[in-house]
């Protein structure tokens, strides 16, 4: 065989392997496509739209059918936002809300409930978990209504009825402790997500491993500390990350419960502000452009946090490389 034949053979081979590589890439992209389409339609395009809106003065007061009248105003909305006397308070409200709901309910109590319900009789554990899921599957309006009716001021609220009978003073619970209720009401919903993930993670730990720990001399508590928790590290970090981001953007329950009040912005959070500014202003003027500026900053915070979490928790290391290489 001559040298040129060699060369052409290896060229053919290179071409073929390039084609194979291409084909396997196409396969991979094909599988990612559905998720990709969803991300584009429901994330990238909306983000692009609000990015655009946030640099305009679009509002109901100057809205006409002639969109050409919409004015480009550069970063003026952002300027206004930074000078907004309440922006600071709302920002810290948001941190407070996310931090407390997340740490107390969405992670800690979720973990405690899953640990408890996996350490008792299976049937009973299932019933308890089913009860904890109720807040999540109840429509938010109905769920908040239940809380409000329970806590309402005398003579309407159930708790105040008891106060009445017992002769103790009546309270307007939600109005006096709005933050407690904002956190608890959201936490009761948020808990079930972590609970489901943690429970399934705990139940998928091989029985032999759990038995081995007891035989090796651990108590049930030591087994949780040394075996169970390390083995559910991934779900823990996942729930922590995921729930931070979803709490940042959630506002429906707060809107229904306190609508950011009582008083000026007492329990207003960032996402609720975006909604208030853009879609439901007290003064009847919906400032679509200004509200979008709030929304854009929220997206920015979310993306930055997501990247930080991925770095700090090293998610790429937690997900093991698949053993099966190219098929």
């Amino acid at each position, binding site marked *: 065989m001559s040298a040129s034949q060699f060369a052409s053979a290896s060229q053919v081979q290179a071409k073929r392997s390039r084609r194979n590589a291409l084909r396997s890439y196409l396969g991979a992209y094909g599988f990612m496509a559905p998720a990709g389409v969803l991300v584009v339609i429901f994330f990238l395009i909306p983000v692009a739209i609000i990015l655009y809106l946030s640099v305009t003065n679009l509002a109901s007061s100057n809205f006409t059918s002639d969109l050409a009248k919409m004015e480009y105003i550069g970063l003026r909305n952002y300027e206004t936002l930074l000078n907004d006397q309440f922006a600071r308070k709302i920002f810290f409200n948001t941190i407070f809300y996310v931090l407390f709901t997340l740490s107390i309910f969405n992670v800690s109590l979720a973990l405690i409930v899953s640990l408890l319900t996996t350490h008792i009789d299976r049937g009973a554990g299932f019933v308890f978990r089913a009860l904890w899921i109720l807040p999540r599957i109840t429509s938010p309006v109905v769920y908040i209504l239940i809380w409000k009716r329970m806590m309402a001021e005398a003579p309407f609220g159930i708790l105040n009825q008891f106060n009445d009978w017992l002769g103790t003073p009546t309270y307007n619970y939600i109005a006096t402790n709005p933050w407690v209720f904002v956190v608890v009401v959201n936490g009761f919903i948020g808990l079930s997500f972590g609970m489901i993930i943690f429970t399934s993670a705990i139940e998928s730990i091989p029985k032999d*491993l759990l*038995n*081995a*720990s007891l035989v090796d*001399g*651990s108590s049930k508590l030591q087994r949780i500390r*040394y075996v169970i928790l*390390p083995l559910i*590290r991934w779900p823990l970090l996942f729930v922590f990350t995921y729930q931070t981001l979803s709490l940042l953007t959630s506002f429906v329950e707060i809107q229904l419960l306190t609508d950011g009040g009582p008083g000026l912005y007492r329990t207003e959070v960032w996402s609720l502000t975006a909604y208030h500014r853009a879609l439901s202003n007290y003064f009847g003027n919906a400032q679509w452009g200004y509200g979008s500026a709030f929304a854009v900053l929220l997206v920015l915070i979310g993306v930055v946090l997501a990247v930080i979490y991925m770095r700090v928790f090293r998610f790429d290391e937690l997900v093991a490389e698949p053993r099966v290489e190219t098929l």
Partner: protein
Amino acid sequence: MKVTIDNLTKKFGDVVGVEDLTLHIDDGEFVAFLGPSGCGKTTTLLTLAGIYKPTAGVISFGERIVNQVQPKDRNIGMVFQSYALYPHMTVFQNIAYPLKLKRVAKNIQHERVQQVANVMGIGNLLDRRPGQLSGGQQQRVALGRALVKEPDVLLFDEPLSNLDARLRLTMRGEIKHLQKDLGITSIYVTHDQVEAMTMADRIAVMMGGHLQAFDSPDELYSRPKTQFVAGFVGNPPMNFVSVDVSRSNGAFIAQADSLRLEIGQERGEAPAGYDGAVVMGIRPEDIQISGAGDIAGEIFIVEPLGREDLIDVRVGQHSFLLLASTETQYQTGEQVKLRFDMEKVQFFDPQTEKSILWQQ
């Protein structure tokens, strides 16, 4: 440590795991639980470990009744079939875990782990994680973890069944050697009768949650008390044939159609007293092909096993498995003469399946 199990029953709802089990295990003894899948071996072991609470019955370690004692307070070591190594810990941490739970000082932990690891031949693997070990190495780590706390009782649940045949042979020897060296009372669950026969001082044969026999390997082999035990212990399995045993002219004759065998007094007298048919059992190694034999048969199948041939011979409509040396090449369809060693036959009651020769 002596282990006493009295009338132990463990049920899961209506499912019987093990029922009315009574076993007295001596200090330092190596006992095997042998039985087919689902017969309650693991259930018994986990009940001994304290993972399951007995439904009824009493378990004692030494003189102490342990029914209500937590697993951690039983001072047992256990080796699981799946090894059950903690995947997030290194080999060192895995072996040190029982010591850490006992709050043994750090430097002593190091010393003991290193010592055990050296005995197990894994001293150079202490920094690895279980995922980075071969099956055999994982097995040694599991064994090391069970041994490191110097347990009073060692429990093994089919520890070798995931290893290849060769490694199994090596580990079999090592475990037995180690057990004799350390003198730790051990209970070894297996469904592999060769493992049980070669390793155990005594074997508890179980079936369907019930104890069938508890005897030394030798006893089980030569004096099985039930037909199940006779058929389960020994490979290839014992041949069974339904015969009538009668006394004629001072001799005892077992007869099944054309098959007619003379039995000595020692083994013939008891079955002769029975009305109707009894089950006769004879092991493959107790039947020889020999020109001097008096039973005519025809070779049906020859299966070469390497060291010897397993041959299925038809006598009338009865079929017998037997072992023959590979020196003679037997052919299917060949007519041969058989000699039955009637000093070694067993007889069982066809209804109760109990031995007629060896009453409990």
